């Protein structure tokens, strides 16, 4: 078990000196940051800053070369992604990764995986406990579908939805796992203004449910409006962090985004 690197502050997620090397390329150069519970934490930075790489490290899809990640005080780097999902971290993907030939409802039902148990033999034999669980999965999935307002698309194949709805569906699927930490990778990418507005409201409702949200996003209006805190990455290093107001006035951030390049 690794020591916490921010022992004094309440935190849901701690990243302790995370480095990620891909051969000679250093994608993350030692990220040391803590996220307090119950907030919307934005993660911004130019393309190639290492935002998605950091998400992959947190959700277990890749292992950081150095450093460790603590979720609610527990070390999670080194665990397989499905174990991390069961602990209470869920995510969406930059390029929508829905199960396209499955229906909208089935996609969300799949999200119940870490909270249910029926195994191979129990499902094959249709044991009573499994049938009960299956009913439960269906009902919970329906309520998640209603939560995001996709109730009337339940039986459509997920791949047939327009992009805006697919992005929302992916969030609903992630929420179905009952996460305490939700990682959203560019949820507004490809959305129009109206859709982005709806998305912003949805993310705020998710925070109201007590779920901590980490948001990678390029839409600055959205970020400034809903984020409680912002962390700026630049070429794999932390450039700045603080409230939206602090970040907007930060000279180095302005330099990185507007000038210099």
């Amino acid at each position, binding site marked *: 078990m690794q020591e916490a690197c921010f022992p004094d502050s309440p935190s849901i997620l701690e990243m302790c000196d995370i480095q990620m090397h891909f051969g000679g390329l250093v994608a993350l150069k030692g990220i040391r940051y803590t996220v307090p519970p119950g907030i919307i934490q934005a993660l911004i930075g130019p393309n190639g800053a290492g935002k998605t790489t950091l998400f992959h490290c947190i959700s277990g899809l890749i292992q950081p070369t150095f450093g460790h990640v603590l979720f609610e005080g527990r070390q999670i780097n080194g665990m397989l992604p499905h174990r991390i999902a069961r602990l209470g971290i869920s995510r969406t*993907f930059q390029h929508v990764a829905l199960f396209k030939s499955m229906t909208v409802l089935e996609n969300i*039902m799949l999200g119940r*995986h870490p909270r249910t148990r029926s195994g191979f033999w129990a499902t094959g034999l249709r044991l009573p406990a499994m049938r009960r669980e299956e009913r439960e999965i269906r009902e919970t999935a329906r309520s998640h579908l209603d939560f995001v307002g996709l109730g009337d698309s339940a039986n459509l194949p997920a791949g047939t939805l327009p992009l805006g709805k697919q992005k929302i569906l992916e969030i609903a699927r992630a929420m179905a796992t009952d996460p305490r930490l939700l990682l959203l990778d560019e949820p507004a990418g490809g959305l129009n203004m109206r859709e982005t507005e709806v998305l912003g409201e949805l993310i705020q409702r998710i925070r109201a449910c007590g779920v901590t949200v980490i948001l990678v996003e390029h839409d600055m209006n959205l970020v400034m409006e809903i984020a409680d805190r912002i962390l700026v990455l630049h070429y794999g290093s932390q450039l700045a962090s603080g409230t939206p107001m602090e970040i907007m006035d930060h000279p180095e951030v302005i330099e990185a985004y507007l000038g210099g390049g």
Partner: protein
Amino acid sequence: MNKNDRWAFAGMVLLIAVFPGIALKVKPISHYVDVMIFAGIFSLVSLGLCMLMGYAGQVSMAQAAFFGIGAYSSGILTSRLGWNPWMAMPAGAALSALVAWIIGVPALRLKGHYLAMATLGFGVIVHIVLGEEVKWTGGPSGMVDIPGLKIGGWKLISEVAWYYMIWAVVFLALLFCLHVIHSRVGRGLRAIHEEEMAAESMGVPTARYKVQIFVFSAILSALAGSFYTHYVTCLNPGSFNLMWSIRFVLMVMVGGMQSLWGAILGAVLLTFAGNEWLQVFSDYEILVYGAMLLCVALFLPGGMVSLIPKAIGIFQNVQTSLYKR
């Protein structure tokens, strides 16, 4: 099971139930009942393999080896050690499951088609052992005088009795597989097939599911091998070589990879092809199989079963156009 599956299941049970009544009345096809017994046995193998290929997205080239493990376990335990066949059958299945687990755990942890490579090697090893290990397996000359099956005090002798027993087992296996597919685990498997990374991130233990399906397919193959042994009552290692593994893969592909119905259809078609229709090609049979594989892969990736909805569509079109007149 959804509504379509229920209708298909009922239709298939009916078809299988009336088949011997018809076939036995018509002289030139009266031996088809015997062919259908083999088709039923091979259907068990193709069902398991279909779950593995169509749903877990992995290929095994060792189904004939698992078939052989089941067959020889039954043969040796009953004829040499005097076990009851019904006891020998689960023993063979358990041995097969254990072996599959030992191969599957390391091979399926890795991404990509390592399982196909590992099973290819393993299949060859099993075939060599069955042929060379003379003391227990009889080596190249095989085994004879293996007892038949009894249910209660009643000996299964007639072909019709065997036919109904085997197909009852096939339907039970099919029902089991359908239940798995339309459930939590089945959704997990389909998710792995479509977006493995997303599936794993949503809590699907991808490696464990793949191993479980592989072990399951090995168990079904071993059971099929045991039934085969007690039906033909003699064994020789030639029935368990790589060619047979390829045939099993072909059954699934010809029938339709993502369909359990297709797996059974494929097993029936290829059994008839092998036992009846392709005899004229004798040594060139393998070429015909190769051509079949190529044609299915190029022109009919959904397999024969994908033709059924199309046929229904055409039928309905014809019907509506007739009504219009």
